[in-house]
C-alpha cells in the first residue's frame, strides 16, 4: 500500500502545461480562482468552462484522474446545493411541507455548485501538472520579494518540501507502531467512530516522538552537508522563464480582460 502512494497528486506526463514554469502556473491558478468570484451569470461560466476545457485538453490529464479529487468534496457540493435550493426566498416553484424550492433558489444553487466544481477542477489542474518540488520552488521564488519585509520565503519552501518528503516515512512509522500495538492487543478496527478515534491517541503519541527524533537526525544530516539557509545557494534546476512562459503570461492577461469585460466590470 505504501509503495504506490503518490506525493501530492502529480500526474506524470509531458504536456505543454507540464512544461510551463511553476511560477506561471501558480499565478494562473490564483488569477483563475479570484476570477471565478467576478463571474455574474451563466454565459460568464460558459466562458470560464471553455477556457478550463482547453487547459484540461492541453494537460493530457485523463478526466477520470481529474474528477477523482472531486469525490472527497462531493458532500460539500451537495450540501451547498441543497442549502441554496431550499433556503432562498423568492417565487415558489414547488412545495412539500416545509421544503420549498424557489426559482431564485434553483438559480443560486446551480450557480454555487458550478462555481465550486470549477474551483476544484481548476486548482487540481495545478497540482496534477506540477511536481511537488517544482511547486515549492515556484512558491519560494514568488514569495522572495517579500523577504525584505521579513517573510522567510526560503525557509517556508524548505519546510514544505521536507514535509512532502517525509509523508511516506511517517506513514511507514505509523504503520509500524500500529502493528506493534495490535500485537499487544490494541484494537483499531471495531467500535463506533468515536471509539476508533480514541484508539488512535496511543498511536499519535509515539508518532510525535519519532517525528521529533527524525527532525533532529535530519537537521544534523543537513548541517553535515553544509546547509546554512537560502543565502548563496544555487540550484540543480534553476527556474527560467522561456518563450512559452511569456506567451502564457499574455494569455492569462487576455483571459482576465475578457472575463472582466463580459461581467461588466470594465465598460468601454
Amino acid at each position, binding site marked *: 500500500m*505504501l*509503495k504506490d*502512494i503518490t*506525493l501530492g497528486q502529480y500526474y506524470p506526463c509531458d504536456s505543454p502545461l507540464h512544461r510551463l514554469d511553476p511560477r506561471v502556473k501558480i499565478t494562473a491558478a490564483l488569477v483563475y480562482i479570484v476570477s471565478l468570484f467576478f463571474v455574474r451569470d451563466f454565459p460568464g461560466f460558459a466562458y470560464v468552462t471553455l477556457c478550463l476545457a482547453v487547459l484540461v485538453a492541453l494537460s493530457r490529464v485523463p478526466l477520470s484522474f481529474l474528477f477523482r479529487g472531486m469525490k472527497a468534496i462531493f458532500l460539500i457540493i451537495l450540501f451547498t446545493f441543497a442549502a441554496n435550493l431550499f433556503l432562498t426566498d423568492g417565487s415558489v416553484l414547488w412545495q412539500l411541507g416545509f421544503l420549498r424550492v424557489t426559482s431564485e433558489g434553483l438559480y443560486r444553487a446551480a450557480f454555487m455548485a458550478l462555481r465550486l466544481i470549477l474551483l476544484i477542477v481548476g486548482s487540481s489542474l495545478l497540482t496534477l501538472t506540477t*511536481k*511537488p*518540488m517544482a511547486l515549492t520552488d515556484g512558491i519560494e521564488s514568488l514569495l522572495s520579494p517579500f523577504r525584505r519585509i521579513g517573510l522567510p520565503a526560503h525557509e517556508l519552501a524548505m519546510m514544505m*518540501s*521536507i514535509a*512532502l*518528503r517525509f509523508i*511516506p*516515512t511517517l506513514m*511507514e512509522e505509523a504503520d509500524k507502531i500500529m502493528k506493534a500495538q495490535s500485537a499487544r492487543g490494541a484494537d483499531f478496527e471495531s467500535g463506533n467512530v468515536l471509539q476508533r478515534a480514541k484508539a488512535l491517541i496511543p498511536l499519535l503519541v509515539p508518532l510525535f516522538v519519532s517525528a521529533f*527524533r*527524525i527532525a533532529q*537526525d*535530519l537537521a*544534523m*544530516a*543537513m*548541517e*553535515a*552537508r*553544509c*546547509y*546554512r539557509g537560502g543565502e*548563496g*545557494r*544555487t*540550484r*540543480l*534546476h*534553476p527556474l527560467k522563464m522561456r518563450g512559452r512562459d511569456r506567451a502564457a503570461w499574455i494569455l492569462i492577461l487576455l483571459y482576465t480582460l475578457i472575463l472582466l469585460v463580459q461581467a461588466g466590470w470594465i465598460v468601454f
Partner: protein
Amino acid sequence: MSAFIEIENLSYAYPVNEGETPRPALDGVSLRIEAGSFTAVIGRNGSGKSTLAKQLNALLRPDAGRVLVDGLDTADDAQIWEIRRRVGMVFQNPDNQLVSSIVEDDVAFGPENLGVPTEEIRERVDEALAAVSMEAQRQKGPHLLSGGQKQRVAIAGVLAMRPRCIVLDEATAMLDPKGRQEVMEILEHLHRQGITVVLITHFMEEAARAERIVVMSRGKVCMDGSPAEVFARGEELRALDLELPFAIDLAERLREGGLALPQGILTEDDLLEALCPSK
C-alpha cells in the same frame, strides 16, 4: 603519508541538566588518521565512537584538546563549512538523512548549499550517482528504494561535495546483509581512489576489511593497529564485550584443537584457503 586528521588530547562531554555531573564521552583521545587510509573504529555502545565521528566534521566541538582536519581547526567558526565540505558524513538511519523526494535532487543538495554553478552541479550529480551505481533510480522517490540503495544515495550526496574524507557513523547498522555488502564494496572502491575512509561500526567482519582498527572503550582509545594485530588480542577484545570475527574465532579454536593453521587469517576466504588450498 601525511596526516589528514590530527586529534590531540580530545575530551568532550554532552551537555547535561543542572545538578547532574557530566560524564565524559571522550576522554583524552589522541589519534592521527593518514590521508588516503581506511580506518575502522569499533567499540561497544557508549564507548564514544559515534561522538568521535561527529568531532571529525565539527558537528561537535572539543571541550578540551584540538581536532585538526587537513590543517583546519574545528574550533574555528570560520572554518567549519570548509571542514564539512572536506569531511562528508553518512549517518545510521537511511531514512532520516535524505532531504529531497527525488534521488537526484537529494544528491544535488550538498553542492547547492556550496553555491556550485548549475552546470557543474549536474556534472557532479551524474558522477556521484555513477560512483554508487544508482543512475537508473535518479528520478525515484527515496521511499521506493531499499535500505542499501538509500545509503548509496546518501554516499552519493556526500561525494557530490567532492570531499577528501568520508566518515560513516554506523551507516550499515540498519541494513540487511546484502545492503551492507553493497556499501562495503563502494567504500573499498572509494578507498582505492584515494579518499580517506573512516568507518564507525560494530560489525567485526566489516572492521576486518579496513587497513587499521581503532578500538574505543569508555571514551578512550584502548587498541590501535592492523586488523591482524588487533584481532590477535582476542582475550582483551572479549573483555571489552567485543566478539572476534567468525573466521578468526574459528581459526583460533581450530589451533587450540591442534590444527596447524598459519597466522594472519582474517576473512572466511583466508580460512577456506588455509583449510583446503585451491592449488
